[in-house]
């Protein structure tokens, strides 16, 4: 069972504000998601190699060759505020 405190903590990690009513609601919903996944724990995996990646391939690399970057104005398209080519964010401590 996920507690309200845990929901608030996860919210803080993602920098999302969650009010009391929402936290209670999410605690119930997230718990049911976890319970659902909990069913996977019932499968016997003794002697099965862990899966690190779903695609059964290895060693995909690229050569160290430069490709063009984006134009600065394109980089800044989605930012709310900019200054002298920088992306401007609110004060961060």
């Amino acid at each position, binding site marked *: 069972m996920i507690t309200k405190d845990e929901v608030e903590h996860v919210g803080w990690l993602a920098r999302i504000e969650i009010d009391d009513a929402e936290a209670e609601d999410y605690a119930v919903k997230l718990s049911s998601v976890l319970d659902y996944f909990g069913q996977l724990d019932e499968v016997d995996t003794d002697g099965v190699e862990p899966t690190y990646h779903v695609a059964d391939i*290895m060693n*995909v690399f690229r050569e160290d060759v430069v490709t*063009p970057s984006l134009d600065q104005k394109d*980089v800044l398209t989605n930012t709310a505020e900019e200054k002298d080519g920088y992306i*401007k964010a609110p004060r961060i401590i």
Partner: protein
Amino acid sequence: MVYENPDGVMVGLEVHVQLNNLNTKMFCGCSTQYHDAEPNTHVCPVCMGLPGALPVINKRAVESAIKIGMALNCEVVEQTQFHRKNYYYPDLPKGFQTTQYDFPIVGNGKVVIEGEDGEHVVRITRAHMEEDPGKLIHMGSIEKSKGTLIDYNRSGMALIEIVSEPDMRSPKEARRYLDKLRNILDYLDVFNGDLEGSMRVDANVSVMGGQRAEVKNISSHKGAERAILYEIMRQKNLLRRGGEVVMETRHFDEARGVTISMRTKEGEHDYRYFPEPDLVPMRVSDWAPAIREELPELPDAKRARLISEYDITEMHAKALTSDIRVADFYEVVAAAIDPRVAGTWVADVLKGELNYRDLSVDSFTTDDIIEIIKLVGEDKVTEQSAVDVIRTILDNGGTPMEVVTEKGLLKVKGDVVTEAVSETIAENEAAVQDYLGGAEKSLNFLVGQVMKKTKGRADARQARELLVEALKD
């Protein structure tokens, strides 16, 4: 002598090395040459974490990581992969850092440093690959900041994080370890250590009776020594007053020379590491033999070879190999003239003059030093004049012969000195009598007079010998 380590100091270092010699970043083809560029001009959808962007691993970065691991006597792991380290901070627009977690590419190594009591082994826990975050610039002071400016040019640069065991017992040993690491990395030619931010350090520091604090934001070797020294004092004082040293992250304020608690609310499990689904695992241990073939001679091996091949002193060999450029420079000089004489001139004289001026050995040519040493060997200039020539070339440029001619440094012939000695004796009867009467000091005065007459071009030792000889009768 065994170092007692009375306070039980334990220091472990995490060193981030930026592979700025690569052409491209860790996971995309953006150029690494951003150091003098406008902000946000060396970024692409991968750097920005735009939806649908797909990272692909830079093969040469992986080769560099293996190379570094080998130089640090590490083992290369059988299978390795990337993880996501989740945290929400604008230095990475994706909301996570792509890094390695439980399968770092190399581990179990060691580095030998000059410790408090002779050779000291620092064990290397691991070295792993990760991406550099972007650069944040706070507008105004942190307290009154009006906002933060972000430049993602650095974001996605390949980093190798080298993690040591807490084997260093003093700030000095930490400094020595960093110097040694830099030395080895220079030999490997995997990065340019002169570029800003190419080597960044976090230090884990503890003393007996307390937990460890992690000090972040250390940007120089000297800074590391100061930060660790401060942190040891802070912890000792805290314990002496009956306080408790808690596990925490602290920030090194370079300007004030202090560490400040960062009161982070995030713990290790909050990073929710999980395998990076956009990158497939790697099996690269079979690259090791070919990379080992290409591994250059490393500092310790070079030092031993210089001693046996050129018959120079341990001290000179150490001084020469502490910078690969100086070692290479020396070998060129040693091929042209007596290697032992070359050792003295390069390791003692030239290196000293370069350090004094904060210059690299690239500021001098091997041809010039060979010519200067030859002038001394052929008895054409005095040793003192030769040092003067080196200094003049470093400060004002010019060739050795130009400086020698301009300053009139060619040694005067013996008969001129003999003449100056006779004149000096004739003109300084009082001093001569004093000397003959047993006042040794008067001889120095007479030597000075000879030097004055020859405008310093006489060899002082020769002048002294001639004076003593002349005054015997």
